[in-house]
């Protein structure tokens, strides 16, 4: 328990407004067409604008937020009998060829799907969301953004206000994403910092989103400086991810884990392909002793799938990694990058594995992002790709309904289009029940507000208390009602035993009470949406102190390949091409 007689660490505060969306407007001073942040402040709708000539501006719309949301959601309804595209809204995306920021029309289009629809009907009509763009240099382009327009529109209703870091790392000068970051116009603090500690790797994955140069292992002093800067900016972090390259190839990886294992950081996650984990039991044991978590990349169960997306057959290596996780009881987050036509038929298998292994606390599905050294050139069709609804449908179809489409909800911690998730309560018999089966996430929105896990925050506890009473009152109506109440009671007993737990023990016990499946759709040059980047909460802390939102970093700042015709950044590439300069909105 924190000592309340000492100075408590500073606490982050909520943003002074709720960021809802982007909308085109004009600068009130010079009338240049610019994009505005639509925010709700004191129940009223306000446009916040940053004009590069006139500076920050704002315009009050004279509309209350509830009416605005209602009208906004109404825009998502396609008129009966409409032929062609229905314009839902506009936003800023990127030209897939030159990466210039361009206006995108967000349209709903009815398409005839190949294969079974969400309802299992062959060749049915579905309403999907597309971006329509027209680059003055490269011409028009289209991209699929969501396979379910209904989900896409409704997700906006889950928007919640963000939280500010204790310290912003850059000034607002040119606007987003050039000023990354994070600047004071960014709408969410860092929920998950990802530190790339090496650009060495023991695989050459065809879908890799980075651009490994095999030149550098970050030294411990630099890593310490990054962690210090992170704590200065955030105060506390629920997690920190150590990534790469392949971080286990870093000769001082254990030292880095030790450096990150500070009281201000809840868990240290080593993101790995698992090869060393399976081969080197002494190394795995040391990770266990240090209290590290494993972020295991596992997105296939056959030689063919591994070869296509990871470059070679990894079946045995992945099995060895899982054996180490089981044997050492290593807390694990499983990461499955889903690629249409290659591994999407193994999504159900991934869910089965996740449910069967108590060590796997969360399962993260990521629709593949076509960016970076591998992903940028990976064969794909931007009009026919996996998005969050497509993966959830496959989860339902491939798990025989154990999990269903309606078990998943947008996570409003980030932009609601970025992440969807479900929590699963573990019953006494080891089976799991999605929270959505016994509670209404729209009613208990707090449970979704802050994080992809359930932290022991006051508002989360209050929401859990409400949930317990709700289930108690309706236990006869809810399937497995008494078993759910028993599981909730068990959770309370384990989280609050008679002999008090240390903060760390309490954290570890809490996270084993429920599991979570979340789907995180990282963006690429086809579906990039500046509005989403604005509220990104997965950030890459940099050596120079900046903390960059993930998709902005991946697409604009890392210097990785952006596509076949896109120039690469010069930094870290000896004898590289001309320095990369950020494109500006047309």
């Amino acid at each position: 328990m924190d000592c309340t007689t000492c100075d408590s660490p500073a606490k982050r505060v909520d943003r002074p407004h709720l960021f809802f969306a982007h909308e085109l407007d004009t600068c009130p001073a010079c009338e240049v067409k610019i994009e505005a942040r639509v925010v709700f402040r004191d129940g009223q709708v306000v446009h916040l604008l940053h004009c590069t000539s006139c500076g920050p501006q704002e315009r009050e719309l004279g509309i209350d937020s509830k009416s605005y949301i209602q009208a906004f959601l109404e825009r998502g309804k396609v008129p009966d009998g409409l032929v062609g595209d229905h314009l839902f809204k506009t936003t800023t995306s990127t030209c897939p060829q030159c990466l210039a920021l361009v206006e995108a029309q967000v349209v709903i289009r009815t398409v005839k799907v190949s294969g079974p629809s969400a309802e299992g009907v062959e060749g049915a009509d579905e309403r999907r969301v597309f971006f329509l763009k027209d680059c003055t240099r490269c011409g028009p382009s289209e991209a699929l953004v969501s396979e379910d327009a209904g989900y896409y529109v409704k997700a906006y209703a889950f928007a919640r206000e963000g939280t500010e870091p204790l310290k912003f790392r850059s000034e607002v000068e040119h606007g987003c994403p050039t000023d990354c970051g994070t600047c004071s116009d960014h709408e969410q603090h860092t929920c998950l910092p990802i530190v790339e500690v090496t650009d060495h790797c023991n695989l050459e994955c065809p879908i890799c989103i980075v651009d490994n140069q095999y030149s550098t292992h970050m030294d411990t002093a630099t890593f310490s400086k990054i962690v210090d800067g992170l704590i200065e900016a955030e105060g506390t972090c629920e997690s920190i991810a150590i990534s790469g390259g392949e971080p286990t190839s870093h000769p001082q990886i254990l030292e880095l884990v030790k450096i990150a294992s500070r009281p201000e950081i809840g868990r240290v996650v080593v993101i790995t392909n698992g090869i060393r984990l399976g081969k080197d039991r002494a190394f795995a044991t040391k990770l266990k002793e240090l209290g590290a978590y494993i972020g295991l990349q596992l997105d296939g169960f056959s030689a063919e799938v591994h070869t296509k997306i990871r470059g070679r057959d990894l079946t045995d290596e992945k099995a060895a990694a899982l054996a180490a996780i089981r044997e050492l009881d290593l807390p694990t987050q499983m990461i499955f990058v889903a690629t249409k036509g290659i591994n999407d038929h193994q999504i159900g298998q991934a869910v089965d594995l996740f449910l069967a292994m108590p060590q796997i606390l969360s399962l993260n599905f990521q629709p593949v992002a076509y960016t970076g050294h591998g992903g940028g050139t990976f064969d794909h069709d931007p009009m026919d790709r996996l998005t969050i609804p497509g993966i959830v449908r496959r989860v339902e179809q491939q798990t025989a309904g154990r999990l269903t489409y309606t078990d998943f909800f947008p996570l409003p911690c980030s932009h609601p289009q970025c992440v969807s998730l479900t929590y699963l309560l573990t019953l006494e018999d080891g089976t799991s029940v999605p929270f959505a089966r016994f509670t209404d996430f729209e009613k208990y929105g707090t449970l979704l507000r802050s994080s992809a896990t359930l932290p022991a925050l006051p508002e989360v506890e209050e929401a859990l208390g409400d949930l317990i009473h709700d289930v108690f009152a309706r236990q006869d109506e809810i399937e497995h009602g008494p078993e759910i109440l028993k599981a909730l009671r068990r959770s309370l007993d384990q989280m609050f035993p008679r002999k008090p737990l240390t903060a760390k023990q309490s954290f570890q016990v809490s996270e084993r009470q429920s599991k979570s499946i979340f789907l995180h759709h990282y963006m690429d040059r086809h579906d990039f949406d500046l509005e989403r980047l604005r509220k990104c909460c997965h950030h890459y802390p940099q050596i120079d102190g900046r903390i960059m939102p993930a998709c902005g970093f991946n697409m604009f700042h890392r210097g990785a390949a952006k596509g076949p015709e896109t120039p690469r950044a010069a930094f870290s590439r000896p004898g590289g091409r001309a320095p990369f300069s950020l494109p500006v909105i047309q």
Partner: protein
Amino acid sequence: MLCEGRVALVTGGSRGLGRSICKVLAREGARVAFTYATNDDDANATLAFLRDAGARVSAHKVSVLDKAGLTALVKQLDAEHGKVDVLVNNAGFGQVVPLALMEESDWDQMLDTHVKGAFLATQAVLRTMVREKFGRVINVSSLAGVKMMQAPVHYATAKAALIGFTESLAKEVGRYGITVNAIAPGILDEGVSAHLPPARLEEYLRHCSLKRMGTLDEASEFVAFIASNRSTYMNGSTIVIDGAV
């Protein structure tokens, strides 16, 4: 020293507030015997800690629900020291559970340990106190038994019952020179409060004038005072130690 010559029995003395009470009473000169129910390791650690500090102390593994065991213990202490003139009814535990999920057994265990335990321990020492025409019975209640606050219902009920027990017993045995009082601490930084959900702690601190939790010793000092000859006219009272909530 406040308690020189006193022989004190503290129930549930192996950890938390009970351990602190033992420490303060011993520091003030009392011979201290404490009971514990199950955890030998905690009891031995407390015993070693107190003895290292020079205390005259003994540990006894006996449940407060074991009537025969308590009677035998008091008989033993009486034989060794000639009396038991201070009893601190401290044994108890906390449990985070809403009424909706509370089992009948949870309720019984909570009420039994706090209330029935106090009854049995008091009955066991009362004989020697009546005989000596002197005694100090001090019950450890809680702020949760005094005013409305977010606390488990069975816990608040048990702690409120101890206040009724205090007032009624004070009336009944005052004629023998025995005073019966209670302390009602607010949230302390160790002991049963130590694993409070953060929301409850934050709410408490928001309303607490001193804006902090109390310490175990801040509560124990009152116990030593009540047990001493400095406290002679206070009877049937409950002293709230909460930093002003």
